[in-house]
């Protein structure tokens, strides 16, 4: 069997540990992502899906459990060290780019993610041409604005460039953190199209968090549903089995029902005993 691109072993993260307000954001999650697969994580607010992404990226320290990337134990690696192999597109288009740096400089920094940064000129003629070609492929006309500070571009343009930055050097794993949630519908659609193209071109292993059930069934080979820090549904072969938005909605309704039952049961017990 081929080694999984990403393997999580019982990862947990507890906020406010040891206090009455203790929250188990991640509660012993086991997960294995096959190389080249596209996995979508769904869940209600506070279900732990963002924590899952942060734990993989290294920006959230684990209370327990281990993280393996291409069979290497990366649990103790810092976020920036993992970023040599894991790339990420954030929800906020302003997060993934350095506003005061030019379009070309941002891209050149991303192109150097796996190597050492020395005293070579960032934008020599060769690199400039390479960056220009990559940007031209987006089809947004940004290749003529390479020297513009990236902060002057629109959110959609910045997110398209962040996506390019995340995929121009093939990562072991691509993390998409609700990366179209802050965009207007047209830009969101455009970014999704670019995502699909980049993922299939590079056969990238992808883990995407989203609120959009439509995106989940359109893009995912596999859909995970999280609830209270656990993976409660793991649906494989999404497209072959023709799982629909309606099916997913039903799953969510059932989760919500279970929740309501829990709280009313708790209320009943409280009234009976206190």
């Amino acid at each position, binding site marked *: 069997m081929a080694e999984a691109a990403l393997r999580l072993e019982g990862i947990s993260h507890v906020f406010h540990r040891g206090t009455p307000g203790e929250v188990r954001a991640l509660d012993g999650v086991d997960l294995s992502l096959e190389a080249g697969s596209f996995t979508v994580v769904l869940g209600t607010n506070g279900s732990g899906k963002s924590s899952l992404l942060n734990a993989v990226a290294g920006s959230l320290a684990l209370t327990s459990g281990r993280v393996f990337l291409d069979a290497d134990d990366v649990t103790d690696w810092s976020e920036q060290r993992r970023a040599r192999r894991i790339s990420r597109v954030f929800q906020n288009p302003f997060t993934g780019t350095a506003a005061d*740096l030019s379009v070309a400089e941002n891209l050149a920094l991303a192109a150097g993610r796996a190597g050492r*940064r*020395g*005293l070579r*000129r*960032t934008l020599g003629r060769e690199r400039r041409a390479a960056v220009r070609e990559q940007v031209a492929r987006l089809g947004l006309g940004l290749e003529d604005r390479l020297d513009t500070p990236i902060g002057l571009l629109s959110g959609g343009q910045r997110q398209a460039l962040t996506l390019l*930055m995340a995929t121009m050097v093939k990562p072991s794993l691509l993390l998409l953190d609700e990366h179209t949630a802050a965009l207007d519908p047209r830009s969101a659609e455009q970014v999704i199209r670019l995502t699909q193209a980049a993922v299939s071109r590079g056969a990238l292993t992808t883990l995407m968090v989203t609120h959009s059930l439509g995106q989940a069934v359109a893009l995912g080979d596999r859909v995970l549903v999280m609830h209270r820090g656990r993976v409660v549904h793991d649906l494989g072969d999404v497209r072959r089995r023709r799982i629909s938005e309606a099916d997913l909605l039903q799953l969510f309704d059932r989760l919500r029902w279970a929740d309501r039952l829990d709280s009313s049961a708790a209320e009943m017990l409280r009234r009976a005993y206190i």
Partner: protein
Amino acid sequence: MNLVIGAVTIGFILALLGLGVFLSYRVYHLVDLTADGSFGIGVAVAAALLVHGAPPLVATGAAVAAGALAGAITGFLHTRFQVNPLLAGVLTSTALYSVSLFVMGSGSLSLASSRTLVTQAQRLAAAVGLPETVTLLGTDVQSSSLATLVLMALLAAGFALALARFLGTDLGTAMRAAGNNPQMARAVAIDVEGMVVLGLGVSNGLIGLSGALIAQYQGFANITMGVGAIVTGLANLMVGETLFGKRSIGRWITGAVLGAVVFRLLVAAAIRAGLNADALKLVTAVFVLAVLIVPQWGARLRAPRSAGARAHG
């Protein structure tokens, strides 16, 4: 004329201070109070070594290293222990005051009988056969002071050019990204903490150099020379930004250098016009404050008018 030459020379020396402050204040958005301490330790290390007969280049290099180490310590306190950057700078520069005293062995040292970069430049000028005085715009000027001016201008221009080039390399661009958006920097595998330590090291190395040169220019070292260095650096930078803008790194750095020179000329003119030299730091602080707040007043004055125009239009 001699007054002008003196002012321009000091301007070029303090331009290095301006470059250091540019790096911490504009690239990292930190007000790095280490500056006072690293300027002072630059003065102290260079003077102590020169008094003991060290070669001027070695003494100056050691001053740069001492400043760089001070900056790296501040960066380390800030990134590793999450000490507030202002406090980290104050702690380092307060500690450096004592260190400078130990290094100098007393509160002040005279370099009158020591070999320095300045005496070497002047000897070089004499060796190539420059007459004792030359006539410039109708006044007699010591060629030795011209030699000093040329030396300092070359140093300032050289380091400015090097810094501008450096900020365009992979490492320099990574530093700018780390200062501009740490989250983005981490996401493209830049060691943000390391970049802060390195950046403050380079910044304070330049400031240490500035201190070493001022001591050699004036021919003496005093423990209080570093006081207010950060404010002087900010003033240089602000004059430069007003004159040259912030549109590119090149313009910005040119501004940091020439801003220092212009500011020194203004100071010289003010003193000539009767300003008490003791009031210099007060005036500098007020100047920096004014540059910071006047644009806000300007915006406030304009805002109601445009709102009114809209109401009537």
